[in-house]
């Protein structure tokens, strides 16, 4: 998380070393960089193969940003925040503040639940034995703990819109410093014996400094010496401290508070607690004694730890805009007392929030290693609730554009990460045209696991009108099935893809295969194509021919003849299939009882002369006599030329027969 640390890559394979250990990188989709060895070529380099060409394999490395989301436990965070995100989109920009606060709470509570789960996972033996994972989980806990802490503070300062922030800040600070409270609980359980602990007074001081007065009092009451006058006086001071309630007249409160303050200081000066120096110190903290607080500050590990407590004793009615100055002063004071301590990112971001410097805050949150989870969701929330609109306008920040780009980046990340694609869809849906375009690019890149998976992807694409994506997926699957000799599957995918050329290609393949071998591939698919056949004339032909094929097999010759003649007349017969189609007529023409009328016989003869003969001639012209049959082939004859005569004779015989019968009947 340091600006100065830039990742460096080194390949170190044989080829790279030979080239002087240089490398080149190309961005590939999915936020990856493809790295490979590189040799510099200049305008004056010789255009010749290098002396080492072919000696070493060219290796390509893929560098990818590491992300915390590889941790399985974190998936629930992604999935749940996705649901909350969608809820927020539905709320739109017109909902009440309470509803936006609800959304903010939902986000925070799911981070907290996830932290709890991570903590639980960390303790399991499975993780304990896996060092990498343990490390990753520890890191994750730190990152999301910080994210939640920042979000909470943001919520207090910018969303709740309370006039007086001290009580909430106290809660906030206490929540993120649980160690003190844990110790306090121990003391409460130990009752009288607690004061014998070495850290008794230190813990009490810390408790006072985080503003947990109730707990401090409860512990003090249990002290063995609680009945002594010093303790009684202390108890009185602590209980009589006025606490500001929202709505109470401010002036009245101030005068009460002043009075209490003066009274308390007077008591301390009067040496009421002389016999109990430790107790006196506590009360000096409560009255805001600078010396004692400075001592306390030196003990503290985070600058913001005791700020809310200090405000409680010195400025209990602090308003958000006053906090800005108070926080700045406090931070100065703290850094003066911790000269050797560098402020880390978290420290900076908290001060940015308190000092109302959202611009820098947003800039810094993007450096958190959470793949922009926090920034994306927080900015989206800011955008929707609209409280800070004027701030962003004054600072020349185009909030909608910022939100748009954050969501776009986050959505693309999810979409290009295996198995998170479904979550990414919702984010990209918010990005209008760009989102759609990104989906169009990213959806087809998702590796397909099964048909169901593919159908799911297609359903997503279809809902968004991404016709090209749907078709591309179908085409890929069709091709795969075809290569795998699953022709039925290939044909069905092709029909789904609505790609006429592809469908025609596969139909051609099936027809050619039939004319070569007499084997009809995937009859169960062809028979059930139904009205889907109209996508391609070739498919219509295939379906109709198959219908004929079935009728013929079922010995329903009259219907078969009718269909066959229709097919001959249809003008959709592919050239290569003419021989097969005409050969099919031979047995019908030559059968013992006549099946074809004279008119149809003439038509067959006509087709023979006008279609098949020219085709054969053309082929012979083009390829020479010997190769003719290589294009026109039927499994039933060896040489296509031979059938011409057989067919002509068969037609003539049937014509004669049919004419006689037809005319006999008519007379």
């Amino acid at each position, binding site marked *: 998380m340091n600006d100065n640390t830039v990742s460096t890559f080194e390949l170190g394979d044989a080829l790279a070393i030979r080239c002087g250990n240089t490398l080149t990188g190309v961005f590939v989709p999915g936020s990856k960089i493809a790295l490979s060895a590189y040799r510099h070529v200049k305008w004056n380099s010789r255009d010749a193969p290098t002396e080492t060409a072919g000696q070493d394999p060219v290796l390509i490395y893929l560098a990818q940003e590491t992300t915390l989301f590889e941790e399985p436990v974190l998936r629930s965070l992604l*999935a749940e925040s996705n649901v909350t995100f969608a809820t927020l989109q539905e709320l739109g920009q017109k909902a009440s503040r309470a509803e936006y606060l609800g959304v903010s709470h939902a986000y925070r509570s799911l981070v907290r639940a996830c932290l709890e789960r991570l903590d639980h996972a960390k303790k399991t033996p499975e993780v304990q034995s896996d060092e990498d994972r343990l490390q990753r989980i520890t890191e994750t806990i730190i990152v999301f703990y910080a994210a939640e802490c920042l979000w909470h503070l943001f919520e207090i300062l910018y969303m709740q819109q309370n006039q007086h922030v001290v009580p909430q800040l106290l809660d906030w600070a206490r929540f993120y410093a649980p160690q003190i409270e844990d110790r306090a609980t121990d003391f409460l359980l130990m009752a009288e014996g607690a004061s014998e602990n070495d850290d008794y007074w230190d813990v009490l001081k810390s408790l006072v400094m985080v503003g947990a007065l109730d707990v401090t009092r409860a512990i003090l009451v249990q002290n063995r010496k609680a009945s002594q006058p010093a303790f009684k006086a202390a108890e009185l001071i602590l209980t009589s401290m006025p606490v500001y309630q929202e709505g109470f007249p401010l002036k009245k409160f101030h005068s009460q508070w002043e009075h209490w303050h003066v009274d308390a200081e007077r008591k301390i000066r009067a040496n009421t607690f002389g016999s109990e120096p430790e107790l006196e110190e506590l009360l000096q903290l409560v009255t805001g004694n600078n010396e004692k607080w400075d001592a306390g500050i030196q003990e503290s590990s985070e600058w913001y730890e005791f700020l809310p407590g200090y405000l409680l004793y010195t400025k209990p009615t602090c308003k958000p805009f006053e906090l800005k100055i108070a926080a700045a002063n406090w931070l100065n004071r703290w850094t003066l007392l911790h000269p050797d301590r560098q402020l880390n990112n978290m420290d900076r971001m908290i001060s940015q929030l308190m000092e109302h410097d959202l611009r820098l805050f947003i800039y810094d949150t993007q450096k958190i290693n959470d793949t922009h989870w926090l920034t994306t969701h927080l900015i989206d929330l800011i955008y929707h609730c609209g409280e800070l609109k004027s701030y962003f306008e004054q600072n020349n920040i185009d909030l909608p554009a910022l939100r748009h780009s954050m969501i776009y980046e986050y959505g693309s990340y999810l979409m290009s990460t295996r198995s998170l694609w*479904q979550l990414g869809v919702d984010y990209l849906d918010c990005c209008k045209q760009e989102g759609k375009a990104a989906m169009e690019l990213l959806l087809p890149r998702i590796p397909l696991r*099964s048909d169901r998976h593919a159908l799911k992807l297609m359903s997503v694409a279809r809902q968004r009108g991404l016709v090209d994506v749907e078709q591309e997926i179908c085409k890929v699957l069709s091709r795969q099935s075809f290569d795998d000799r699953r022709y039925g599957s290939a044909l069905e995918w092709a029909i789904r893809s609505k790609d006429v050329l592809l469908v025609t290609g596969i139909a051609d393949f099936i027809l050619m295969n039939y004319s070569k071998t007499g084997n009809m591939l995937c009859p*169960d698919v062809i028979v059930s194509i139904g009205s889907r056949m109209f996508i391609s004339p070739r498919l219509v032909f295939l379906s109709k021919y198959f219908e004929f094929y079935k009728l013929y097999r079922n010995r329903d010759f009259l219907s078969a003849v009718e269909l066959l003649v229709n097919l001959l007349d249809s003008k959709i017969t592919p050239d290569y299939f003419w021989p097969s189609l005409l050969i099919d007529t031979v047995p019908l023409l030559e059968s013992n009882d006549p099946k074809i009328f004279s008119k149809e016989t003439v038509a067959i003869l006509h087709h023979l002369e006008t279609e098949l003969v020219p085709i054969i001639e053309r082929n012979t012209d083009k390829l020479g006599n010997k190769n003719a049959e290589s294009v026109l082939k039927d499994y039933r004859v060896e040489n296509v030329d031979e059938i011409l005569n057989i067919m002509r004779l068969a037609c003539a015989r049937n014509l004669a027969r049919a004419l006689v019968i037809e005319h006999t009947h008519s007379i």
Partner: protein
Amino acid sequence: MSFPKVSSHFVSEKISAVRWLPEQLHQSDRFVTGSWDMDHNFVRLYRLQSNQYADTSVDYIPRCNDKVAMEADVTAMEFVDKNTLAVSCADGHISLMNVQRAVEEDQLQRTARSERLHYFRYSNKSAPCTGLSVYGGDIATVGEDGCVNIMNASNVKQVKRTIEADSMSLLSVCYISQQQLVTANRMGIIRVLDARAATGAQPKLSIGVASEDEKSSNFVSALSTHPMQQHILLCGTEEGSITVWDLRNLECPASYLSAHDSPITDIGFHRKDPSKVFTAAEAGEVWMWTENKLIGERNLQDGSSAWLSGDRVRSLISVDGVLTKIRKSINSFDTNGSRLLCGSDTEAVYLIDNIF
């Protein structure tokens, strides 16, 4: 009548199948889930525990008791008997799991794994096993290679029969009786098969599912038969409609209902109360279809059903949304008593109490 109570529980896995553990005497509080599209897929055994945080409206929280790592996506699960679970996987195998109920931690163990049941003949690559159906001790599986495999749960290593039923992916299978099966493919063709006959001797019984637009493809992704009247077959399709067939009369569908706007992912009668049918859809909806009372009673006697009443079916059956606006596919559901359990791509399971 109390209102249904919906609670969602995020499990960090895309769930492809859910099943309640069968219980004889009481409502089940254990269930199994199978995941898909994850780096590592698991079958997990959950148990409902009463919620200790009193401040929420959630009564039960599922807790994972045990898990078994699978080689690939889990595609379907079905209980063969009280303790034995059959799981089909996208690597073309099925596995049998044994569930051991215990007071503290229940256990789940894989007891058998079949040979590779489904593969593409030419490339010899594994084909995903897409569905399974159980009848008695028999298990039938279908896969993307278009084959149906039948074996007995007592020995899944030995396949009793392989039927090359289709030349494209089969998406769903369902037993009608001990001998008869129905399968559905990606084109919406439903075939009736004989479990005893070899490929060549299969009855040529196939029906095409009804569709709004005849020119577009419309796969059948879910099949279910009536638990008592097994001639009633419900088919859920890609366009979101339900086609009902009376298997005694295959000439035309008995009823056709347009329902969801997205592909139906799962369809089924309530296990104990066949007057209720549930459908789940890709867009994240679960609907409950209820036969209107009066007519239901009359129909039980004459052996027909409101589902078979053609155009009148809409007036005889009312429909309620059980889950809506989930926005991602509900892949599977199961009923047990008054509880409905749904598994979804949102990486959550939804538990609905008091469905009726």
